[in-house]
Every structure is written in structure tokens, then in C-alpha cells.
């Protein structure tokens, strides 16, 4: 379990995160939603160990995150950031293999390439495998980056490979079309089914309701509400957090709430 307790973070006199406690259990999808500047990405950076909070602790399976080496961390958790830039020409296979490169000195062996191919297939990007990364569109490159992240922790490998892993995703579907939004979130969902703990920042409340086990509503660096979609999502909460009027009805087919803008 990935647990953050009582996280506070300030930058230049602004309180970015204020006393946040969050836990990401294995085999669950935790979605975080909130308006721009709510501190979602900062929370992700803290959970991933990239920046340390002013106050509070982060533990993976009870061990504080400062005590993990980058290499050991990279085996246990993979992180997808927003806006990854790569100004050099790489083919997509090499980009995906980058995810494996810290753990394996020989990152282009056949076994590694197989892992990369599976990951690319899961993000519907296998046909791009020999394309130059810099020639891809925004959505295509996002899929390749997600494949890199999936390959890093090999969450579609055999039983032992996918034990005790985490995925931390920062708006993984922000530039994807409808089909691929669905496809990628299903992939993430199936990774969770195989035991991977997922922390995902989303902007689409309906997709969050459809795919998440638990939703955290963040506003101004604080958790306003958390719980299963069916428990917590209501017009008052959405109004409070996003300042828009909505109506919430049960999803016609799935077992989750559906939000309609008014």
C-alpha cells in the first residue's frame, strides 16, 4: 500500500497542499479530480518521491520513501507526467525501452522487447513501434509514453512480475480521442484487476466515476471529500469544488453515477 499522511507543501508563501492524507491500496483505482491549481500534480510528485513535502510522511509498504533508492522505486512504481518533451529522434520502441533501462543493463534483449510490445499493444500503439517519436501526434505520443510507463513495472507480465506495483498517472488521457480514452482507462482498470495500485488524475468526472474505485475531490490543496463514486458524487459537491451546476443521475447501463452539465 502506498500511504501519504498529513502532507503539507508550501511554495513561495503559498500553501499548495494542506494536510492531505491519501492511501493507494493494491488492486484499486484511486482517481483524483479538482479544478486547475488544486495541487493534484504536486500531490503526485510527492507520492512519487520526486519532491519531499514540508510536513508528513509517504510510505510504500511501511517503508518511508526517502529510504528507497531510485532503482528500487522504479521497480515498484511508474509515473506518467504531463507534457513530456523529447527533442531528439528516437523510434517508439526505444522510447518504451527507456522505461526498462534502469533495471536492466541490456535493455534491448528479446525478453525486454517482448515486454515493450505487450505494453504498446495495451495502449493501442503497436503499429507505431518503428515510427520516429518526434513525428507522432499529441495523442499518439501520449499513448507511447503510457506504454513506457506500463512497461517500466511490467504490469502485464506473469504473476510474480506484477506483484506490489503502483501506477501514478497525471492526466493520462488529456489529448486522446474518445475511443482511446476508453481503451486506455480499460487498460488501467485491467492492470488494477491484476493487482496494481493506480493513482490517476482525471478531468472528466464521468470517466472518473466509471473507472475509479474511489474518488478524491481536491480544492485549494485540501481534500474536500473522498469515497466511492456512488457514495460521494452529488450536485452540491460538484458545485462546491468546480463551481458549476450539474445534475447527477444513475448511469443508464453501468453501476455508477452519471453527471450532466446543466
Amino acid at each position, binding site marked *: 500500500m502506498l500511504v501519504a499522511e498529513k502532507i503539507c507543501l508550501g511554495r513561495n508563501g503559498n500553501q499548495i497542499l494542506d494536510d492531505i492524507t491519501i492511501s493507494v491500496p493494491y488492486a484499486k483505482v484511486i482517481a483524483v479530480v479538482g479544478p486547475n491549481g488544486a495541487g493534484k500534480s504536486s500531490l503526485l510528485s510527492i507520492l*512519487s518521491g*520526486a519532491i519531499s513535502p514540508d510536513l508528513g510522511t509517504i510510505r510504500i509498504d511501511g517503508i518511508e520513501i526517502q529510504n528507497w533508492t*531510485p532503482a528500487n522505486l522504479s521497480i515498484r512504481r511508474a509515473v506518467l507526467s504531463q507534457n513530456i518533451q523529447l527533442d*531528439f*529522434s528516437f523510434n517508439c520502441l526505444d522510447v518504451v525501452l527507456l*522505461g526498462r533501462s*534502469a*533495471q536492466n543493463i541490456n535493455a534491448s534483449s528479446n525478453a525486454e522487447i517482448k515486454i515493450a510490445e505487450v505494453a504498446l499493444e495495451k495502449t493501442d500503439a503497436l503499429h507505431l*513501434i518503428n515510427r520516429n517519436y518526434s513525428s507522432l501526434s499529441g495523442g499518439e505520443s501520449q499513448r507511447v509514453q503510457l506504454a513506457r510507463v506500463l512497461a*517500466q513495472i511490467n504490469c502485464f507480465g506473469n504473476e510474480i512480475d506484477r506483484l506490489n506495483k503502483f501506477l501514478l498517472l497525471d492526466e493520462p488521457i488529456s489529448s486522446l480521442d474518445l475511443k482511446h480514452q476508453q481503451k486506455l482507462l480499460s487498460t488501467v482498470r485491467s492492470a488494477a484487476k491484476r493487482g496494481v495500485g493506480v493513482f490517476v488524475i482525471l478531468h472528466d468526472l464521468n470517466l472518473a466515476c466509471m473507472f475509479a474505485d474511489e474518488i478524491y475531490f481536491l480544492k485549494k490543496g485540501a481534500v474536500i471529500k473522498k469515497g466511492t463514486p456512488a457514495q460521494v458524487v452529488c450536485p452540491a459537491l460538484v458545485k462546491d469544488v468546480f463551481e458549476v451546476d450539474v445534475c447527477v443521475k444513475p448511469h443508464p447501463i453501468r453501476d455508477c453515477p452519471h453527471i450532466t452539465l446543466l
Partner: protein
Amino acid sequence: MEKNIGRDDVIKQRRLRLSKDLIYFLRPCLIGFLILIMLGAVCGSLVFGSVKIPISQMFIVFGKALGFEILSDIVRRDEVILLGIRLPRTILCVLVGGGLAISGAALQGLFRNPLADPSLIGVSSGAALAAVSIIVLGVNDLAFLPNQLNHLILPLGAFTGGLVATLCVYIIASYQGKTSISTMLLTGIAINALASAGLGFLIFSSDDQQLRDLNFWLLGSLAGVTWYKVLAIAPIVIVASTFLVFLGRHLNALLLGEREAFYIGFYVEKTKIVIIVLVALITGACVALTGIIGFIGLVVPHLIRLIFGSNNKFVLPCSVILGAGLLTTADIISRHIVWPAELPIGILTSCVGGPFFLWLIMRQKRYQVK
């Protein structure tokens, strides 16, 4: 319909696999080709000159030097020229060309920017300033030190200068793990300006003989090399380059950004410092012996990327090979182009590198517009 899609997929898959296999087959061939170019250049550098030495004679001389029993006669003059003058010079070409090229490749990876080059961002001129200070102040000929140690003072001084310059550029140009291209180049301009002011002052205060030496040296020159000097920098360049070659995967990860490299599992800060120190070592050692030879570090990694793509596992070692080959070739040309005199090689590399740099900028501009 469904079936058709299935078959198309299979065909597509097969084609993918084929083109992948082709890449894996072509790469070793291309590397072999690069090595051949380098060996050709090395042979050319040994054979051509004011005295032409037949290749057969060259092999006989080397055979004898390696202790084989040679039956045919050796022209004594050829032996002296080959072993005393051309061989150390050729080895220096290989070391400096390979070293500058791999430094350029590593800096480009570190700055995530294909325009970085030791001479462009001021590393070379920082090293040059330190080296010239040592020459003018005469610190490189200390009576109380043995001769071999005196040969090391210049490379080490240049290394320190190069290190300070690299650190300055890096600290100024990067902010929160991001390096701005324009800031980096502007910092390079500022450091180059400062260094040339310092150089100007040192030249102004030096005597006639020093002036002549300095001038030649500042233009970049491989002339007047001795075994002592080559042996002083050879271990530095070889060891540091070997380390850099093994940092290929770290540099690859850094291309995605420092944060991503940490996520992938690398110690980012440590890696950055190691790379900066290694680059400063190599550049310092090269500059100490040959002065400022520009653009090798820019042109060579670029050519390699055009052929192999940007994977640093290939870019770094192939840059060494091609850099060595190119500088050796340039040296052959510079020895002949104004015969019987000798053109400082820095002039030649800048003549070729300058237009290349312009072409790069034009290409980037086109890219950005698109």
C-alpha cells in the same frame, strides 16, 4: 470485413518485424563502415606528408617496432619520421577527435539540446584561458617537479578551467531541472567573451616568443606533438571516454527530462555531476594539447544521429569512431592544403563547422514553423 482487418494486421505485423530486423542488421554494418573510415584515415595520416612512405614500408617499420624479425631493409629516415613524428601525431588526432566528439554528444544529452558543443558553450575557452595563464605565467615548467609531472600541469589546469566554465553554464542555464536553449547559448557567449578578454590581456602581456606559441595554439593545432604529451593525456581521455560510453542509458533517460529520469530509476544529480566532470576532463586534456578545435563536438554527433537515430548507446561510441576519423582526415588536409606550411586545424574545422551550424539552425527553424 472483420477477416480482412485481421489479415491486414498480420501483414502489417510482419512488415514491422522485417523493418526492425533490418535495423538490427544494418547497425553493425554501419559501425563496421565507420571503423573502416577511421582506419583508412589513420593509415593516410601515417603515409602522407612531405615525405611519402609506402604502406608496405609502414608495416615493416611497425613490425620491427613490435619486435618481429624483419628481413628486408628499413630506410632509417622513414623509421624516424613514422615512429617519432607521424605516429604520435596520428594518435593525438584519434584521441582529440574522439574525445571532443564524445564530449559534444554527452553535453547535448545533458542539456537535452542538439546545439551544445564544448567550444560553443564556452567549455573550451574556459579551458584555454586556464591553459594560457599557465603558459604565460610559466607555471608549467617548475624546476622542482620531475619532467613527467610537469607535462600533467597543463592538462589539469585546462581541466579545472573547463570544469568551472561547464558548471557556470549549467547552473545559469538550468532552472528546476529544465535547461533553456537560448539561456545556454547566451551564457556560452558571455563566458566566451570573458575568456577572450582574459586571453587578450595575457597575450598583451606576453613576450614575442610566447606570443607566437600562443597564437598558433589558440587557432588549434596538432603540430609539435611529442610522445610525452600524448602519453600525458591518453589515459585521461581514454578512461573518461570509456566511462561516458557506459553512461549511454543514463543520458537516454535524461533526454526525457530530469524528473522522468528519476522516475525511470536513475540518480539524476549524481549522474549530472559525473557527466560534467568527465566532459571537463576530456575537453581540458584535449585543449591543453591542441588549443581550441571547434565544431567537432557539434558536427560528429549530429551526423551519427542522422544515421543511427538518437539512442546514446550508439551515438556515444560511434561519435568516438567518427570523430577520430574526421579529425585525422582534417589533419591530413591541413598538412597539405598550404604546403609546405601547415594550416592550423582549428581554422579548417571552423570553415566546415560554421556552415554546418547555420544549416542546423535553418533546419530547426523550419521544424518550429511546422
